């Protein structure tokens, strides 16, 4: 019997060689339980030392190896090649981000947005000797949003970018929410202000694509909807009591 062969059609890009890019087919012998990252590493060893892609943990926790496989954005290390044997699989870099080389994209726009959110706890004062008290229930409420590995997969499937390329993006809005609901963080209005616009929570089309594709089951759309509700709630409160200092940001 012929060994099981996997065919990958890989989108290549090398500015010096061919600025318009090309698709190159490769064949790899499949081993039991093999994932796509292992297949790519084999190709890099045995067939094309120049093939460029990112990797690190090989366990779906570091967020390095996001790419587009047959039109779907996935982590290569979490993708079984057994599922790709039917027909030649098309492997492309993540969409939206500029391609640097082959499957490596430039994620600086992603991390620029990340920094814009000021994604670090701005804590209420407390004695350095003790932890903040927190209910386990509260932790569980924040936990799903903490699990984001910043792989960039949610950006590619999000229709909000079609309308506005400056949209903050699902991962960043989930990150904002993570700090908003963290009882240790003293910010509240700052965070809401940072997302209360068309490139923030109001740009979302609530089609839940990001929730569906997230390899870590982070639900950004829920965060977005909850933040919208909070914004509305503040607006209403302002109508009732305009002296609330926070209200003026939303009037």
């Amino acid at each position: 019997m012929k060994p099981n062969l996997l065919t990958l059609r890989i989108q290549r890009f090398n500015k010096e060689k061919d600025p318009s890019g090309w698709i190159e087919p490769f064949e790899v012998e499949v081993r039991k339980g093999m994932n796509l990252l292992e297949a790519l590493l084999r190709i890099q060893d045995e067939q094309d030392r120049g093939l460029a892609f990112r990797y690190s943990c090989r366990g779906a926790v570091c967020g390095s190896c996001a790419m587009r496989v047959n039109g779907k954005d996935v982590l290569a290390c979490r993708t079984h090649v057994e599922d790709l044997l039917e027909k030649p699989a098309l492997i492309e870099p993540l969409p939206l981000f500029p391609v640097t080389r082959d499957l490596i994209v430039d994620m600086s726009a992603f991390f620029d947005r990340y920094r814009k959110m000021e994604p670090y706890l701005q804590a209420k004062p407390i004695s350095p000797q003790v932890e903040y008290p927190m209910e386990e229930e509260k932790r569980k409420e924040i936990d799903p949003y903490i699990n984001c590995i910043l792989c960039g997969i949610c950006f590619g499937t999000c229709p909000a970018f079609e309308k506005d390329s400056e949209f903050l993006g699902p991962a960043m809005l989930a990150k904002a929410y993570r700090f908003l609901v963290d009882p240790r963080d003293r910010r509240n209005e700052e965070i809401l202000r940072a997302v209360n616009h068309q490139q923030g929570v109001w740009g979302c089309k609530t089609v839940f694509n990001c929730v569906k594709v997230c390899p870590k089951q982070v639900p950004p759309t829920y965060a977005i909807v909850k933040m919208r509700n909070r914004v509305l709630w503040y607006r209403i409160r302002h109508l009732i009591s305009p002296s609330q200092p926070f209200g003026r940001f939303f009037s």
Partner: protein
Amino acid sequence: MEILSHDILIIGGGLAGLRAAIEAKRSGRDVAILSKVHPLRSHSVAAQGGINAALGNASTPAKDTWENHAFDTIKGSDYLADQDAVEAMCREAMERVIEMEHWGTLFSRTEDGKIAQRPFGGAGFPRACYAADRTGHNLLHTLYEQVVGLRIPVYEEWYALSLVIQEGRCVGALCLHFFEGRIVPFRAKAIILATGGYGRIYLRSTNAVINTGSGSFLAYQAGIALEDMEFIQFHPTSLYGTNILITEGARGEGGYLINARGERFMERYAPHLMELGPRDIVARGTQTEIDQGRGFEGGYVHLDLRHLGREKIMERLPGIRQITVDFAGVDPILESIPIQPAQHYSMGGIPTNADGETELPGLFAAGECACVSVHGANRLGGNSLLETLVFGERAGRKAAEQAGKEKKIPEEMIFRERLGAFQSRLDGIFGRKGEEPSFLIRDEMKAMMTSRVGIFREESGLLAARGKIQELKKRFLKTGLKQKGLAFNNELVQHWELEGMLHLAEAIVEGALARKESRGSHFRADYPKRDDEHWLRHTLAFKTEEGVRLDYKKVSITSYPPKERTY
């Protein structure tokens, strides 16, 4: 020629590197981090089970203390740890962990809202603070967030290739901008190596694919001896197939190890602590079951979590469930997890004092690449995350202090010279025709290390390993490169990393051959007993033209005289 200058350059963006950077920055220095991957992709992100600190939050009859923690660590180390360093680490553990909580780490909680702690192997108290089973992810993201807040610059996807030493002082490093293919000299008053472990010298390893130990090799090449390299930790429970880690926390929560006959076999090896014996003992027990035919076909046993129930698994071990479902198609709520031992941690490394200083002025090391030594012959679970924070902080502080005093600025000349020399070495490599690709050598080295320098060692196997390494080193000199240029040249980087791995492997083998005793993770079937009279000492491996030269140094003992280690 372009030169980049900083007071302090930190090589490595894992927990140790980031923590060091934060401290040095807070001391008012100009600090930069340089890392071959984006900091969040560092291996630290994969740590699962927890970080030790004697907070005493769990409800136990007696209260945990840092002295208990120190004792457990020293006993766990099979008395090879330096006790003064262990005491420093355990004393500062609470402060470091609370600080992480204040910076945003989302630790799991007890019923009264405190940081939750779970039992870990070899620990007398539930001491491992955890964030579900994604402790490393939570800690690393928290530290990176702080780094962003402090606006510390990060050179992402740059490789440190060589240290620049002048008149017995480390004054900088040559680094490669991988995408642009430029080698740029960095000038610094202090350099901190925080480059992690070298698990990928082994075929079966829980480590990230990028853990090649190149930072340790930088120091070794610069003439610094590597310490205790023969002590390699094997983790008892890695997922059969991919060797992805299944945290000790799974046993901490009550998981059983079961052989093919359905027995809880740890009864034979650690009748009191059972599955929560220290790693070396559980790993040897597991491997013995497999070797003696009581495992399943293919070489694995079962980790059974089913009796914990859905709720506990979903709450405390959700990441583990995700891993076993994704990578083995096994749902631990319904089925047992197939596991086997695998290389997990590098106890040895660059010798430092408790402030991260190496013997080379200007050079510091912290984290898994360093050997302080707080783990001795066997690290306890939860202690290495702690090590990264405690000694990252200490190294950052000390480096800042020294950089403040250092007034001499080395001249450009020296960097120009070193760059020229490095370039001509590269030209030599590029000029070789190459008889075979280097990945074949890499794969043979890995398989050999797992089979001959693994959990069980003996003279004949180690001698064969020595012979094999010499052969591989010779063959390596005849490998060539197909890829030209420096930009995106994976082949070049892997070639360079392999050279380092071969040297580290050699130091491991030589240390293991010489050490005719069994201690902690180093088990010699031909010398199964610990021998304090001859071997209560640290190994030092020096790189020479002829190969490895071994020397030894004393273990620092404060208040815990060596005793027999039973569990």
